[in-house]
């Protein structure tokens, strides 16, 4: 398939996943922020300024709730907003309309039209939760349609890989911002660990899989390592690997596949070998660095359109 199309599909997957995670986080932070929040700097922190950092929005000085909420939800000029993600996804889907199924295109296009509708501003100011819920549901619809209506070919593999890598990346960004840095003699406080799980969308899954209370360490370990939870970093990395492995012409020689494979094994190893005192923040940082190399490998191997192959491997 065309390198350009593969690239579009990969980013389509990323933007749909980014929109969903953005909606989840906005919803989670919005809800926990209405009630008392713990303001212990040694605890897990998940407030509006954390959210701006996670989503990569520039923050000039103190932010108020209303300001952050408006910027990150419907502001089309804000690259990190929910609206931007959805509109990027819709642009991408329009480009590859012939490759994806008509149902998928319609699902995305409708989402975009509803979000840009006139009454949305009112909905955001009176009860933004309904907007976030809508985006989460539409994202589920998109992925559901993908699995039921799209041919499982190379195109769907790039779409999947993009979606999964974005999920891993978003969860890691969230953990890195929310987790407090620990000194030697400080005890890690739990702070808003519960809100973190809610914002990641895995609270119920956590309750069913982990007997411990939703405190910082078990919650972070769950979001990093728990393969049985589809949006954990480990599950996302291994799903991205599967997608690329299935479509690569020579997976045993493919830098991104090999790298993902190693990363996946590394996560599994840490899950079993590390004790509870391990520096999870450092793990997150390292995994994210590795993921950005995967990103570069993918661009090199698949999207360079042969240029790189002719020029020889890196």
């Amino acid at each position, binding site marked *: 398939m065309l390198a350009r199309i593969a*690239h*579009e599909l*990969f*980013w389509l997957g*990323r*933007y749909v996943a980014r929109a969903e995670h953005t909606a989840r986080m906005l919803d989670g932070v*919005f*809800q*926990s*922020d*209405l*009630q*008392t929040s713990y*303001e212990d*700097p040694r605890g897990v*922190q998940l*407030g*509006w*300024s*954390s959210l*701006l*950092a*996670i*989503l*990569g929005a520039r923050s000039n000085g*103190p*932010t*108020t*709730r209303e300001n952050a909420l408006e910027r990150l939800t419907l502001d089309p000029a804000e*690259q*990190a907003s929910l609206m931007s993600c959805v509109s*990027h996804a819709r642009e*991408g889907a329009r480009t590859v309309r012939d490759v994806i199924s008509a149902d998928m295109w319609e699902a995305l296009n409708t989402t975009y039209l509803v979000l840009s509708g006139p009454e949305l501003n009112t909905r955001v100011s*009176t*009860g*933004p*939760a*309904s907007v976030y819920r809508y985006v989460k549901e539409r994202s589920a619809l998109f992925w559901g349609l993908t699995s039921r209506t799209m041919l499982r070919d190379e195109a769907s593999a790039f779409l999947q890989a993009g979606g999964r890598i974005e999920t891993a990346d978003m969860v890691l*960004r969230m953990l*890195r*911002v929310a987790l407090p*840095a620990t000194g030697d003699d400080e005890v890690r406080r739990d702070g808003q660990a*519960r809100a973190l799980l809610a914002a990641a969308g895995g609270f*119920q899954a*956590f*309750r*069913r*899989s982990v*007997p*411990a*209370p*939703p405190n910082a360490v078990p919650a972070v370990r769950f979001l990093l390592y728990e393969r049985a939870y589809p949006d954990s970093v480990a599950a996302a990395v291994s799903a991205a690997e599967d997608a690329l492995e299935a479509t690569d012409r020579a997976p045993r020689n493919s830098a991104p596949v090999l790298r993902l494979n190693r990363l996946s094994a590394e996560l599994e190893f840490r899950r079993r070998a590390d004790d509870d005192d391990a520096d999870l923040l450092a793990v997150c940082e390292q995994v*994210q660095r590795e993921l*950005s190399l995967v*990103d570069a490998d993918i*661009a090199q191997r698949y999207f*360079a*359109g042969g*240029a*790189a192959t002719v020029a020889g491997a890196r």
Partner: protein
Amino acid sequence: MSEPMLARQPASYSPASGFYDEVYAPGATPRPHAIPLAFELARLGADHLAAAGLRRDTAFVEQGITFEADEDGHVRDRPFPLDLVPRIIPAGEWNSIKRGLAQRIRALNHFVDDVYHAREIVREGIVPWELVVTRSHFARAAHGIRPPGGVYCHVAGCDLVRDSDGSWRVLEDNVRTPSGISYVLENRVAMTRLVPSLFRHYRVRPVDHYPQLLAAALRAVAPAAEGEATVVVWTPGPLNSAYFEHAFLARQMGVELVEASDLVVRDDVVYMRTTSGLQRVHAIYRRLDDDFIDPLEFRPDSLLGVPGLVRAYRAGTVALANAIGTGVADDKAIYHYVPDMIRFYLGEEPILQNVQTYLLGDKDVREECLNRRHELVFKPTGESGGKGVFIGPLTPKDELDALADVIREQPARWIAQEVVRLSTVPTALDDGTLSPRHVDLRPFAVFGEDIRIVPGGLTRVALVEGSMIVNSSRGGGSKDTWVLDDSGEGDDRAEHPMPQPVPPVLPDVRHGGWSGQQQQQQQGQ
């Protein structure tokens, strides 16, 4: 500071005289803690509240947060009625309620222990033994059993009311299976979604840690090694009116929701049947009454029970929450003695007062009460949920006369109480206008290693004008209950920027773009 908050009482709102209104003080100005609420309510306006009410009903029906109501002989699923105007309890007031509840529950727990062991309170002549053994929930089977940590009342909910002077009083104790906590949690979620602007000026203490408290308490009393206890929630089944709550708690705690047929007792040990065989159960949060739990010990006709359970319990291989026999403590005749219990067991003065109650066993008291039957409330002692209650001023004379005969026949099964003039809180009608309605409060306490009480509780509201019957089966609704945080009292959240922890530096968020890709390629070559 932006616009000053001026919030007069709406012209249409008129609290009935002789009752305590929790928002508007006499003179039609809001009480200090309620000023921002009154202001935001006025700003929202009736239309918006009415619209939010419609969204609430749709959402509750979709989520299955409903209860069965009898309508013209048909049983129908109705959305649980949540009123969109919250009830606010200032921090200081809550602290004294909390201490009062903890004190009361500690005393009730002592009493249960005492009744089934040494009976000191009886020997001291404070509570007559005759009265204790005739209570319908007195359980001979519990005699001599002391559960781990000496905790019997793991989950307790006391019904509180405010009298016309605004003082808090205990109306009833609930130490069997008090229900309603699921609505407390769901109400809060719904409020943040439907009317977030009401939260603007308040710091409201969260309630969503209740399942954690409960799970921790159950694990603490389970006879198992640390971290290995298997906890289950035991429901009578999907037909039970509180099944929603049973499933809610099991889901929130991440434990199995079992029915009697899932449990089996072998050699005095309780197991559950799983796909990989029998699995040991260490702690059971049971949501059915003593009478039904074990046909070998209690009612032999119970199909909901697990044969042998009480034997296992006696052998100490399984913890039951609440313990067997706690019903003796929340009997309405025993209620009369709770202040004395607090003095006897704890050597303290009760922080929360009872409502004036008369035991009808004594002939003089009984006749005096029956003479005043048009102004007192009569309650059967062993019932809960408002069943069988007669409110003198609201009951026709012929019914009261018939009641008097019933009471004379079985005086020990009845108590009489003074009518409490329940406080009112503004409540939104269908069209969004506000009107005063009577409320009570059921806070929930969890007793594991110590007593923990979730801030607030379930505020029940009588939706019918003038009515004081708050039970949901009889036209009652609920309100989200806000306990304010006192750290930084008086600071207005909307005015202040959020605290700014410095977030770590992350790599930039990447964006796709084919042209950028091409440029990179060309630069790389």
